[in-house]
């Protein structure tokens, strides 16, 4: 498969235009590399392709800071905040989103594994945080939902979560509860399914945690302690960074839970351990989960989809073993945890 086959001859100069070409000027050698590397009959690939992956890396950091400020409509955010804490969304009027996603405590109910959830009927999964969901590429452990708007129906209508009882009922309850003027400030049509979905989604997008120590370090505004820096180095060198990267330190790809070893440690797998298989039905998606974001991870114990790791130390140790085939020393674990703690940003729950 040579360059010319899918190069200029296929796409053509005029199709791409100037801007594309300029980008293409960068892409072209890269694509050429890939093409050559992929070429079946190339016994002696050009020098560039012999350079191992990581050495080609630019100075681009695998983790990016969370931007400060937002451009979201404040009226809609305010409406969403109200709805998010509104118990009237639920069928029995006893649960709000905040019941499980406590904003004062990292967007989860901390310390609660799903089996011992005291306040709500136990959700099927360990509760993930709603912080920084704006930067996740899919939602829920199995990544079933592509947008927050789509996702809302899941907790709202689930009989074990909010048991909302259908959109008509929800809209009717809210219509009774809300002065239409308040709702209309954000949505001209008043209380509608679209308005509710949009307002809550927009509110959740506003729940970012900027100015984590690590972000300020990335911006050159502060220094990490030796231990934290060592933890980051280990995090990178050991390979955590290949899955937990990007702006959210995760949340942008699917990955098998247990690449190098059985992640369940011999425990009998349940339906919920099937992960993405539940969505796609493909065998290769068995036990594949969305890699979770590690931002604010220090606040969101317990860990993993099943809440099987009670402490961050446990989770880190487990990750090293099952994902990387690497037994982390205690020192390494502590260093990594110290690093992970620098990912805790400014909490929206405390900003109110």
């Amino acid at each position, binding site marked *: *498969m040579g360059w010319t086959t899918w190069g200029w001859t296929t796409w053509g100069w005029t*199709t791409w235009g100037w801007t594309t070409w300029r980008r293409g000027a960068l*892409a072209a050698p890269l694509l050429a590399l890939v093409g050559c590397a*992929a070429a079946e009959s190339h*016994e002696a690939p050009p020098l560039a392709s012999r350079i191992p*992956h990581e050495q080609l*890396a630019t100075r681009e950091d695998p983790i990016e800071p969370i931007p400060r400020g937002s451009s979201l409509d404040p009226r809609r955010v305010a409406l969403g905040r109200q709805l998010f804490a509104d118990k009237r969304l639920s069928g029995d009027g006893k649960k709000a989103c905040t019941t499980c996603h406590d904003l004062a405590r990292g967007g989860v109910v901390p310390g609660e594994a799903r089996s011992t959830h005291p306040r709500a009927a136990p959700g099927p999964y360990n509760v993930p945080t709603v912080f920084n969901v704006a930067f996740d590429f899919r939602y829920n452990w199995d990544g079933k939902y592509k947008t927050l708007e789509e996702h809302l129906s899941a907790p709202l209508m689930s009989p074990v979560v909010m048991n909302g009882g259908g959109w008509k009922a929800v809209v009717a309850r809210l219509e009774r509860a809300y002065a239409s003027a308040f709702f209309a400030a954000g949505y001209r049509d008043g209380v509608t399914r679209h308005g509710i979905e949009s307002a809550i989604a927009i509110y959740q997008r506003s729940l970012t945690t900027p100015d984590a120590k690590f972000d300020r370090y990335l911006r050159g505004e502060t220094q990490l302690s030796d231990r934290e820096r060592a933890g980051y180095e280990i995090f990178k060198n050991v390979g955590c960074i*290949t899955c937990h990267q990007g702006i959210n330190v995760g949340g942008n790809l699917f*990955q098998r839970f247990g*690449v190098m070893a059985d992640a369940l440690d011999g425990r009998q797998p349940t339906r919920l351990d099937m992960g993405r298989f539940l969505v796609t039905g493909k065998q290769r998606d068995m036990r594949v989960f969305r890699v979770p974001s590690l931002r604010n991870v220090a606040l969101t114990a317990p860990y993993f989809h099943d809440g099987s790791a009670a402490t961050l130390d446990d989770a880190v140790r487990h990750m090293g073993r099952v994902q990387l085939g690497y037994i982390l020393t205690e020192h390494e674990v502590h260093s990594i945890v110290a690093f992970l703690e620098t990912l805790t940003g400014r909490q929206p729950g405390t900003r109110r």
Partner: protein
Amino acid sequence: MRIGTLRAAALVVGVALVAMIVLRLRRDDNPADQMRFARALRRSLELDARLNEEIAKSRLGVVTHYDALVAVGDKMTDVSRQLAVIPAFIDGHARSDVKAQLSSYRSARDTKGQLVETFKTAHSVLRNSVRAFPHNLQRVLAAARKLRQTEPLARKLTRLERAVTLLVVGSTRARVREARCALAAVGVKAKTKEKPQAGCTVAKLETPSAIARQLAIALSHARLIVELQPRIDSIVRRIVTLSVAKPAMAALDISEMSHRRALASGRTQRLVIFALALVLTVLTAAYIIGRLRRTASALREATARLETALAELGIERDRAKDLAELRSKFVSMASHEFRTPLARILSSAESLHSGNGKRPQAVRDKHMGRVKDAVKEMTQMLEDVLLIGHAETGLLELKPQQLALREVCDGIVEATRNLVGEERQLDYDVSVNGASVWLDEKLLNRVLSNLLINAFKYSGDDTSVRFAVQADEGAVLFTVSDQGLGIPPEDLPHLFEAFHRGSNTGMIPGTGLGLAVVKRSLDVHGGTIDVESQLGRGTTFTVRVPFVPQEEVEA
């Protein structure tokens, strides 16, 4: 009629115009639509190129996170949502073409999206294994070196390291096979597309327990590399070759063509609308002008009719006036002219009566004669009046009969001589001996005697009157000339009007009916009368009466 056609044509053109305008408004060749659609398509091309670029960057480790890939994917989703609405100007055949292209674009994009997910998953693991495998292997080898009898193991592991390293550089088929066999040689089955161990020597590895765990991890990294590296390369190749661009390009071409067509047809439509509007304007103008002109001509007609009506009314009025005048003239004439003979009758009657028969016979005869004459005169007057009245109302009848012209004329001359007296001189000249004519004797009589009596009446006693009768090409010419007063020229036009009398007749009595009777009598005969007159010298009347020769009448 033409106006009606105009109105119908204007109506038809107007309806067509409205229809065209409606069509035009309904038609959607909005440039903004095309711009939006084309921009989305072009953006999809650009994003596709971006995606390929990001994949390449990730594959080569230039970029060490997947956010950029995710972002491109999200943007592609946005764009494909924008493309869900196909602009209205793409219609008919083109629409289904575009739909087809877009659906193949979408399916290509979906496939690409799935490939990207697979890439990320495989790639993140591969990266770790590629980095971890050499470290792990070195550690295993170092540990193995301390143990005895590990030469074969070390050799196998070195082979594996070489094979894996080469594979990572580029997964050719030969390298994949070699790597698989190197794995098989240490007892590990790699799950690749090809049959796991085809053509390889499989060996069970004797592993010293001291390094077993370390080795197992190293080998699983090796296995992952052998499994994932070809997969990654094939995914990248598929992503890069799977061109979302082609259907997007095709859709772009079609949409641009459609838009151009829509614009062109829009142009024609605009032209047609313009032409229709022009025609409508012209028709309307023509209609209005036609209407105006018709109104004007109608007005003119009405005026003309009114004028005729007025004229007719005037004529009527004139006639009524004439009649009234006639009547009043008759009354004044009658009151005057009848009184004279009546007075004469009365006086003679009184004389006869007062004489008590003692008057001598001669006197009595004289009075009786006077009475007779007066009665005759009155009868004559009455007849004249009656004749005029008949002629006026069209009741005058011609009763022609065979006449011996000479005898009739002689009779008239005789009667006239008797009336005017022997002392007056009449030159009588007849050159139509023996001619027989077909005429109304009574009328002829009245014509000629009137003329002759007038001639004597209005001339001096010592003058003579000439009366000539001659034949002239199927007609008889009667000429009566006198040497009397003559007729003033201003009277000539009214000469034959009833009750009109010449301004110079003075005290000479007369009814003013004589010439009117002459004229009307001649009229019914188809005859004519000419007057030549010199004031104070005399007058000549020439009467021309066509006669029907006897033979013809008998035939």
